[in-house]
């Protein structure tokens, strides 16, 4: 598994930190962080990460709105997106999957397993 560059967009700093540590420790991946949807879109355009982890529940622009913008912009539309959500219901997962995201990971997760899960979803 080649080292990857991951962008995490989440308004919770604690989540950013554990994801950063977990991916680094378990797989040696680099993690970029963004605190909001707007910042995330900007980072994605500039940094061109291999994968975007996107939190659904965020103030102002939520995860789904952010995903819509990412998938419409030519610079970012090719970057795979995985949603991070506290909504764990099967029916909710189905709704998210219908939006066109590459995958859904439900909270709470173990950040040490995250790399493996992402690789499974994206067939890396």
């Amino acid at each position, binding site marked *: 598994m080649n080292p990857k560059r991951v962008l995490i967009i989440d308004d*919770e700093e*604690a*989540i950013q*930190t*554990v*994801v950063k*540590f*977990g991916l680094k*420790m378990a797989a040696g991946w680099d993690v970029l962080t963004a605190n909001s949807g707007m910042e995330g879109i900007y980072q994605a355009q500039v940094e061109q990460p291999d994968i975007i982890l996107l939190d659904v*529940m965020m103030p102002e622009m939520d995860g789904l709105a952010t995903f819509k913008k990412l998938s419409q912009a030519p610079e970012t539309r090719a970057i795979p997106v995985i949603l991070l959500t*506290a*909504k*764990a*219901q*099967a*029916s909710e997962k*189905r709704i998210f999957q219908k939006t066109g995201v590459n995958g859904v990971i439900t*909270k*709470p*997760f*173990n*950040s*040490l*397993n995250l790399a493996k899960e992402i690789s499974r979803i994206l067939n890396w």
Partner: protein
Amino acid sequence: MEELQRQYQRARLFAEVTLKIRQSLHLNEILQTTVVEVQRILNTDRVLIYQVFADKTGKTISEAVLPDYKTILDMEFPEEVFPKTYQDLYSKGRVQAIADVHAPAAGLTDCLVDFVDQFSVQAKLIVPIVLNLGLRSADTPAENGGNQLWGLLIAHHCQAPRQWTEFEVDLMQQLADQIGIAIAHGQLMENLETIVAQRTAELRQVNQNLQQEIADRVQAEDSLRQNEEQLRLITDTLPVLIAYVDHQERYRFNNAAFKIWLGKSPETMRGKRLRQIWGGATYNRIRPWVKKALAGETVHYENEICRFDQTICSVDVTYIPHQDEKTGKIKGFFALTSDISDRKAIERMKDEFISVVSHELRTPLTSIHSSLKLLSTGQLGTLSPDGQQILGIADDNTDRLVRLVNNVLDLQRIESGDVTMDRQACNASDLMVKATEAMQAMAQQYEVQLLTQPLSIPLWVDPDYIVQALTNLLSNAIKFSAPGTTVTLSVQEGSAMPPSPMALPPPATAQGRRSNARQRESGQSASDKSNSSTAKSQKCDPQKLELGDLKSRKTGSMVRFCVQDQGQGIPKNKLESIFERFHQVDSSDARKKGGTGLGLTICRKIIDQHDGEIWAESTEGEGSTFIFTLPLWSPE
């Protein structure tokens, strides 16, 4: 000339007396008239009527006597002076005219002479009063060809002996006959009067009864009206809709609340059909329930109705069928509708609260969970053995908290109806494989053999939820199995029903076997380490399937899943209560197993939503089986 004179006198006197006799219908009056008139006509001292009774005794019942002489009214003649032989003679019409009682020619016995002397009798004339009754009653025996001696008409002459003329004898005889006729008439009349009196009394009684009945009815109607008013007052005061609907779906009774809710008075609603009152859309919604009630089933459902002020309110509705006691036919149903908008609002608030709290808990939990996992790698610094142990406790309990939050949210979602089962055609085999794969790691961790026999059976279910139910049951079974034992997942086409509680053996008594009493619940997380486990086939107990076959005839085809372990088993009296939320068979054990107390409750909710049934069977010391049924997929 003298003879003519006498005849004329006799005719006149006779006519007078008969007239007087006939003027009266009262016997006493007739008799009294007779004695007075005869005494006057004969110009004699005493005239009396002596009545002879059925027992042959007698009594003077009428008398006309001059003041100078003793009265013999009310006197009974002694038998020696008036023996029965005399009575027989008189009844045959004997007339005695004695001119001088003391003359030997008269032939009177001494005692009779002595007797008549007491009353100064010198001469006497006796004629019988004989009744010739065409109408005869049972107590008047027919003697002498229908002649009955009723009494004697007697004339006494006291001042001197007297020679009775033929005219006088004839007169007496004819009067006696007239009296006889009058008495016969009088008796007839009395008889009639008795009958009339009887009938009158009877009529009076009937009349009285009728009046009583009328009074009773009036009273009953009054109390009925009072009851009705009371009932009306009660039903009108209650803040719920109360109605009676007949078998043609017409309202027959509505309380006043209908006016407040729908703006329609009970009077205008009576006789109207449900569809007319509620409109097509609402009627179509309630129709299935109405049909069920009219088929004799008590139904209970929740609905939303639009009040006439256009507000929508949530209602709780109960229909109770009204069955004719004699014919058994359903005549209609009673409908009770209560406003549960407030309750619904509170429920929504509760659901929302639980949902928000659960979601909000997940994010910090992710941080804690991941932080602990990162710490436990040792890459961030080495902990002492005690520190490792404490970290382990934090880690385990975070896992448990995660499961608890997940379960609480699952349960709340299913209960609130926020999620509906997304049913689709799928295969039992796929679901079993998926669930088994998810639980292999946990089985390995507990050193438990997980056996499964997937069968290809078409189902009509929400696959995600059924897999969740299966993993919950498998996780429970594994958790409560000793190392080296086996947990089996099997499926069988057919159907099953839970054993009746009556058929269960009596609950096991507490014998200090606390270690056997365990809590059953779901554990959603399996170990991350994965290892292979053996797959073998094992079927459900055929005996249990027979039980189910009984029900399949009624409910149609079902599929039956069994999760069987070889653990310590569950006490009989806990087999049902383990499905209640946070139920604990043994709290210390539950903590040890890291359960949440909601797993089986969620399983039951999921199976309920699929119109299936779930239950547990167990033999203590041998193991437990959790069984649930699901509807078989059919193209219809």
